């Protein structure tokens, strides 16, 4: 078997500027942050993000100037920052093309990509501006001409239902990312991925992509994961590279490992209100830090121990969350 282990640096080097990228996780949960930081350190540019939803990681990529196209339905920091300030600025400066879909749309776009069909039908979002053809931003930018094979000719399609006469249904185009970066609790040395708790849209995102990079809390023997294969999420053969990076989803949280670091995200969200604040924050926490290990040391042990989850509850019983 080919050895799929790489260093974080090597794995991220597989990502080309201009690529279409997607990620594991949901808003501020189980995002491949170690890979995001490394992408920033390697100064990836002109990325085309296609995400079922975005979050803190997306704001960081946008704030650093790495993103030129964003297709998704949501961006922000949940409880820790309601406004995606970096995206807001980049929209206004014209540096980013934003293509808005709904959750169901972009989820089905991934599923269409995973299933090898050019589109899927859905009833979601009738009667709303998401379907407004004036707001087809990739079309307005002249990018729906077929030159980029990953950008479909149309944002939406419509077709009558010939089977039950239910009327005109909405068609959403397949998402066909170059790369999907997953953060998981466990990966086997051949690439089998196990995710515990909610799996979000990871399965669809990984299967839609041409290349899959998996960062995991731990690399475990394949044989261990293959003893209970009905608990695994992704088969080994679709995974191209694996990296072990404990706490690699920090500051986002993950089931059974660690909680969201709300204070950390809040700090970034606050800093992100201005261009210079964003730069200062990135200088301190990304560019000024040489590696994932340095990042963890800078966070320090007691911070991480407060986030560590309780084995029974799968969330932290030590993290301070509210004001009481």
């Amino acid at each position, binding site marked *: 078997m080919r050895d799929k282990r790489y260093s974080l640096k090597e794995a991220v080097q597989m990502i080309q500027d201009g690529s279409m990228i997607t990620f594991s*996780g*949901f808003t*501020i*949960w*189980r995002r491949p942050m170690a890979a995001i930081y490394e992408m920033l350190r390697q100064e990836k540019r002109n990325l085309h993000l296609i995400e*079922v*939803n975005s979050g803190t990681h997306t704001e960081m990529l946008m704030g650093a100037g790495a993103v030129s196209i964003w297709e998704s*339905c*949501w*961006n*922000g920091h*949940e*409880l820790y920052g*309601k*406004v*995606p300030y970096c*995206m*807001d600025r980049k*929209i*206004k400066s014209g540096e980013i093309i934003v293509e*808005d879909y*709904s*959750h*169901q*749309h972009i*989820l089905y776009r991934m599923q269409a990509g995973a299933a090898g069909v050019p589109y899927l039908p859905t*009833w*979601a*979002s*009738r*009667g*709303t*501006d*998401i*379907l*407004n053809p004036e*707001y087809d931003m990739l079309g307005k930018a002249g990018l729906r001409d077929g030159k980029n094979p990953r950008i479909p000719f149309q944002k939406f399609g419509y077709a009558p239902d010939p089977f039950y006469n*239910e*009327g005109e249904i909405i068609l959403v185009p397949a998402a066909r990312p170059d790369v999907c970066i997953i953060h998981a609790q466990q990966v086997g040395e051949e690439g089998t991925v196990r995710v515990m*708790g*909610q*799996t*979000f849209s*990871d*399965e*669809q995102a990984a299967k839609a992509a041409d290349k899959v990079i998996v960062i995991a809390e731990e690399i475990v023997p394949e044989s261990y994961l293959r003893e209970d294969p009905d608990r695994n999420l992704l088969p080994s053969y679709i995974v191209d590279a694996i990296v072990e990076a404990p706490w690699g989803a920090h500051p986002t*949280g*993950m089931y*059974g490992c660690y*909680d*969201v670091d*709300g204070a950390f995200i809040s700090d970034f969200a606050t800093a992100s209100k201005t261009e210079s604040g964003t730069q200062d924050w990135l200088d301190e926490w990304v560019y000024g830090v040489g590696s994932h290990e340095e990042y963890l040391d800078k966070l320090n042990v007691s911070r991480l121990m407060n986030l560590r*989850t309780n084995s029974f*509850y*799968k*969330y932290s019983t030590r993290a301070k*969350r*509210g*004001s*009481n």
Partner: protein
Amino acid sequence: MEKVLVQNKMYAAPGEYTAADLLAVAAAREVNNDEVVFAGTGLPVLAVMLAAQTTAPDCKVIYEAGTIGSRSTSLPSSVGDPRCVEGCSIASGLLDVFDQLQRGRVDLAFLGGAEIDQYGNVNTTVVGDYLNPDMRFPGSGGNNDINSLAKRTVFIMVQEKRRFKEEVDYLTSPGWRVRQWPSGEWMHRREAYGKKFLGGPSAVISNMAVYRFDEETGRMYVDTLHPGITEEILQENTGFTLDFSRCRGETLPPTHAELDILYEVVDPEGIFLPKK
């Protein structure tokens, strides 16, 4: 984690509860027992957890990140939180729950928004012209889908003139009178959805009033005013002319029992409800 509380069903007096408390309690009262309820992050989670402790112990809570039938004992800060997984019937992913939503299995959804118009159209995307925005918000998320496909939707909103608008800047989530694309024609939701019409916005609960909808005209009307709020105050905080013709009077305040459950069981950490 479950605590036994003395059930004091007396209504609290003004000053004994906050606007957020009233919002959560009024929202919880919208849940019928045994219903399948879809809840978004924030006050909606408070509302369903309160409902499960009070009037709707058998409701099934779906969180859009991928859990069904959660019995959380610790308040999830977001629908992706591992706390949603606790005691749930299934932890899966978005495809599972959105398929079930589209299949018509969701009775009631709780959602929020930045702007709303009198037809219940909601904007969570942008302030100003979409092509030249004043401020970008997070976007639809599942707001649009959930509101498209649940049988009833209850919106929980902050009451401000700039948020209750004649026309929303961007129609993210569909109300009772919508714009059908690709034609762009305005029409009643029933017409726009045709055979796939499952329902629509059922109530809007703000920090000042409870609104409902006339399903024929699609227009919002005032159902009850929160204690201390007059028609004048409400109209001042609204960007369109309100219909008070069917106003039933005052919103029932929280009971002491409901407040106790909110503060002692649902959110003892003070995540959404900091202690006074």
